[in-house]
């Protein structure tokens, strides 16, 4: 038995071994098959990708021959596979999978080859994609052709350069913005009131009061927006406070409020979007320092100039810009009296602050006076007295900027910096003026509110009296009809919103007038005089004193920005103001284009416009925020007039929203809103936002730092490369020693040759130089030329006279290891020449 057992064992073992072997083999075979299949699949996928990508690519043209052949091959393969699938020794599941794949492949691509069922579908797809692409192109071309005034702006650009044209592009952009705002206001507020609201004369608020009716059509009254103008759709007071009007139950008060706020929201969105787009288009110019001269050389010509006169100017400006850069490099040579300069700058700033304060006070004074005038009878006042405020503000805007420029001469800044200071000061001037004006206005509003209380009391008292009389005479106590007074005779409240609206409209109109007059007189008249008086004048008027005017880009742009600020502020109180602005921008475009071409000469220093664009947008954003605040303040805190405007009768203007939520929206919305306005929810939300802002700020700072680090590394690499190539180590040492020897200016050649020695920016960032032992590389006499180390990175300097073939041992300069200081270099002999 044992034998049998033993015999069985081996046979068992053998059998088992055989079974195991078979299993192993099967596994291996399976693995091999799987890997092969995977490879095949990958190849198929790759080919499919290639062919599908080539398929996509070939929308415009058919596939190339090679691809067709390859595709054909594969389709044939797949077909063969399908045919022979039955004979393969696979499992059913696998066969089915394979079959599905192969069939899908054949279906998809046979059409491409022009046969089989998929052919027509494929051809159709190709044709449709071609058509769509063509349609897209045509549409893009059409959109480009539709841009208004493009040819006009291009003409200005070719004569005056891209900087002046940028003003007109900005003007056009503003026009687009105002057009959209106008659409909102007109469509959602004015038209419903006109079509569906009560007509003129039906209500007290819509009628000219009896006492004013005689003079309501007078031109002088209309010119100041009194009379019929005041009681028209242009101003806040006309709109009725009926909750919903017309067939469609249009809720006018709600719409008025939402449009008023929506104007700001839309403007904010558009400005930020434009800023983001400008920033993307390389508007940062952060790398000015590294390639200054290269860029000047390669990119300073403005290829869009087509006029010889402008071309001459461009020549001159290129020259000037080169000279300017050379001067820039020499700036540090000017080691003048720093204290004097600082004193002068402080003095200048003080003077300017005085000017600003003075102008602010002047406006306040004038506004106060005009309030006094308003109390007197209109007819007694002269035109000057009536329009004092506007005239004073415009005059200040005209006189102060040149004054600032003159004072700024004291400061002696680089022109670019001086320009920025100038813009900031003018901005402060306009801002100060505007806010003083607003504060004076709000004083007036408050006094009107007081007045209103009295009138309100009087009205209620009169009404009560009427009812009592009626009851007395007719013995009826209920259902007394309302007093039958014509709307023109009703006692009116002062309606402060309309007054505010009138003020803004008057300001805008006077601003328009001043601008147009300035162009007419300052540019046109001047040009006419210079041209025609030149024939009989002692000196050359064209070249000498008055000459032709240049187009003042910054002044015009700032004027535009502030005008827009006033519109934003006034649009809530005077819906017609946006319409006036649209007309103004439209006419301004044509007028200024004509004036520029007819009366102005190109700038002497034609400068590039691209980088300033975001600066103006930033200003616009600031002005937007500043003009948002008064409106929001008045919506939130001031009570609306009791008898005029869409919010009359309410405590606060935003009560309309509460009312809507209560009455029109389903009840659970009211619950949601009341929860949402719970301070317990708002405060955490605000905190969360603050945290988010802080986090994003930190992240962006980290990115900036990383950026700087990378830039520095790149810079180091470049310098290392250069140094390595030129075997600088020895001469570095020598040159540094020489520097130590002669720290004063004697080493510095005349300005023109300095160019070669100033790889300033590169070396500022190169720590390699500063790290040299015992080196005063970037210190000492070098402060004269920024951070120039006369040695490194300048391939021309010492390379021309290498100290002979290099000795095998350490170089003479380094012979004694890290040299203790200045004494070492002297042993070497005379300095190698610097060129």
């Amino acid at each position, binding site marked *: 038995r044992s034998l049998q057992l033993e015999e069985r064992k081996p046979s068992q073992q053998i059998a088992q071994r055989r079974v195991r072997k078979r299993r192993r083999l099967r596994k291996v075979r399976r693995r091999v098959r799987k890997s092969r299949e995977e490879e095949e699949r990958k190849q198929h996928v790759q080919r499919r990708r290639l062919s599908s990508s080539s398929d996509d690519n070939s929308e415009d043209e058919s596939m190339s021959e090679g691809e067709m052949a390859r595709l054909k091959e594969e389709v044939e393969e797949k077909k063969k596979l399908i045919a022979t699938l039955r004979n393969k020794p696979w499992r059913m599941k696998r066969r089915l999978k394979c079959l599905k794949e192969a069939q899908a492949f054949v279906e998809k691509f046979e059409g491409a080859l022009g046969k089989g069922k998929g052919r027509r579908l494929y051809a159709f797809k190709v044709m449709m994609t071609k058509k769509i692409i063509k349609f897209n*192109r045509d549409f893009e071309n059409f959109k*480009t052709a539709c841009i208004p005034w493009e040819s006009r702006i291009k003409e200005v650009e070719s004569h005056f350069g891209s900087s002046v044209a940028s003003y007109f592009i900005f003007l056009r952009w503003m026009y687009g913005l105002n057009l959209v705002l106008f659409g909102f206001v007109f469509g959602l507020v004015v038209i419903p009131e006109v079509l569906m609201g009560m007509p003129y004369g039906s209500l007290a608020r819509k009628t000219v009061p009896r006492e004013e009716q005689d003079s309501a059509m007078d031109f002088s009254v209309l010119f100041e927006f009194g009379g019929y103008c005041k009681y028209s759709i242009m101003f806040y007071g006309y709109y009725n406070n009926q909750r919903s009007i017309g067939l469609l139950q249009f809720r006018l008060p709600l719409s008025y409020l939402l449009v008023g706020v929506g104007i700001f929201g839309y403007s904010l969105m558009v400005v930020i979007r434009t800023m983001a787009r400008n920033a993307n288009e*390389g508007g940062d110019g952060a790398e000015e320092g590294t*390639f200054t*001269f290269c*860029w000047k050389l390669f990119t300073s*010509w403005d290829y869009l*100039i087509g006029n010889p006169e402008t071309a001459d100017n461009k020549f001159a400006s290129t020259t000037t810009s080169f000279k300017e850069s050379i001067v820039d490099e020499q700036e540090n040579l000017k080691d003048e009296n720093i204290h004097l300069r600082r004193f002068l700058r402080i003095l200048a700033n003080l003077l300017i602050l005085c000017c600003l304060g003075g102008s602010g006070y002047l406006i306040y004074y004038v506004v106060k006076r005009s309030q006094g005038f308003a109390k007197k009878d209109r007819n007694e006042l002269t035109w000057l007295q009536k329009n004092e405020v506007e005239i004073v503000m415009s005059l200040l805007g005209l006189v102060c900027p040149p004054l600032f420029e003159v004072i700024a001469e004291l400061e002696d800044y680089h022109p670019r910096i001086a320009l920025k200071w100038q813009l900031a000061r003018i901005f402060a001037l306009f801002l100060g003026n505007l806010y003083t004006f607003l504060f004076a206005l709000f004083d007036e509003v408050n006094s009107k509110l007081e007045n209103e209380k009295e009138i309100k009391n009087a009205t209620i008292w009169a009404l009560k009296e009427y009812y009592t009389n009626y009851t007395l005479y007719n013995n009826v106590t209920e259902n007394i009809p309302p007093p039958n007074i014509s709307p023109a005779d009703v006692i009116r409240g002062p309606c402060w919103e309309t007054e505010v609206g009138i003020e803004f409209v008057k300001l805008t109109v006077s601003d328009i007038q001043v601008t147009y007059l300035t162009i007419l007189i300052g540019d046109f008249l001047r040009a006419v005089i210079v041209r025609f008086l030149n024939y009989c004048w002692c000196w050359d008027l064209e070249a000498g004193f008055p000459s032709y005017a240049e187009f003042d880009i910054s002044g015009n742009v700032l004027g535009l920005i502030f005008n827009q600020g006033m519109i934003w502020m006034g649009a809530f109180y005077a819906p017609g103001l946006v319409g006036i602005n649209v007309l103004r921008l439209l006419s301004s475009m044509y007028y200024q284009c004509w004036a520029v071409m007819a009366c102005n000469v190109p700038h002497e220093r034609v400068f590039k416009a691209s980088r300033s664009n975001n600066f103006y947008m930033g200003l616009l954003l600031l002005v937007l925020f500043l003009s948002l605040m008064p409106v929001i303040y008045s919506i939130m805190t001031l009570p609306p007039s009791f008898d005029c405007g869409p919010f009359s009768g309410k405590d606060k203007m935003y009560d309309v929203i509460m009312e809507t939520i209560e009455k029109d929206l389903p009840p659970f919305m009211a619950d949601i809103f009341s929860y949402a306005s719970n301070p317990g929810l708002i405060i955490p939300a605000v905190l969360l936002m603050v945290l988010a802002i802080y986090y994003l700020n930190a992240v962006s700072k980290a990115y900036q730092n990383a950026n700087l680090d990378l830039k520095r590394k790149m810079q180091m690499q470049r310098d290392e490369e250069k140094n390595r190539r030129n075997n600088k180590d020895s001469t570095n040492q020598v040159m540094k020693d020489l520097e130590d020897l002669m720290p004063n200016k004697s080493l510095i050649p005349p300005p023109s040759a300095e*160019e*070669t020695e100033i790889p300033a920016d590169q070396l500022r960032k190169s720590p390699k130089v500063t790290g040299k032992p015992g080196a005063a590389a970037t210190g000492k006499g070098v402060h004269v030329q920024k951070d120039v180390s006369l040695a490194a990175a300048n391939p021309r300097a010492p390379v021309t006279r290498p100290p002979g073939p290099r000795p095998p041992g350490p170089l003479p300069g380094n012979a004694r290891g890290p040299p203790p200081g200045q004494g070492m270099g002297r042993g070497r002999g005379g300095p190698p020449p610097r060129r």
Partner: protein
Amino acid sequence: KKLNISHSQITRLYSRFHSLDKGENGALSREDFQRIPELAINPLGDRIINAFFPEGEDQVNFRGFMRTLAHFRPVEDNEKNKDLTSGEPLNSRTNKLHFAFQLYDLDRDDKISRDELLQVLRMMVGVNISDEQLGSIADRTIQEADTNGDMCISFSEFTKVLEKVDVEQKMSIRFLH
């Protein structure tokens, strides 16, 4: 077809070609180009005109005209690149820069030397700056751009210099959409 210009663009280019061709002989000569004011007052105008004409010839036909102008097609973001098969399209950033590079590199040795820079400077600034200063400006320019120390600006260095410049937008003509 390689240039990827659409039918309408070709029509427009042909009408422009036709309007420039005063001699009505189907080809443009240098005088025809110099009639364009923007090119006439451009200091590099002659070189730009030269770029249209193939080596040594005096006439450029419409195909050559199109080929040169194809450099100025705007670069589309979603341009499905045919990098795999036919090489870069003519209006890629590299090719645009190469076009500009060839305006400066007159002897076609793929390097802008100091003398070539001096020539350009003289044309751009004329006599208003002394020769010495011009020389220094040229030296400084090379110094800024040169990375391998050969005292010339090669094409790769040129590309690096203009890395931050928005070449795709500046060297594109919008109507060639």
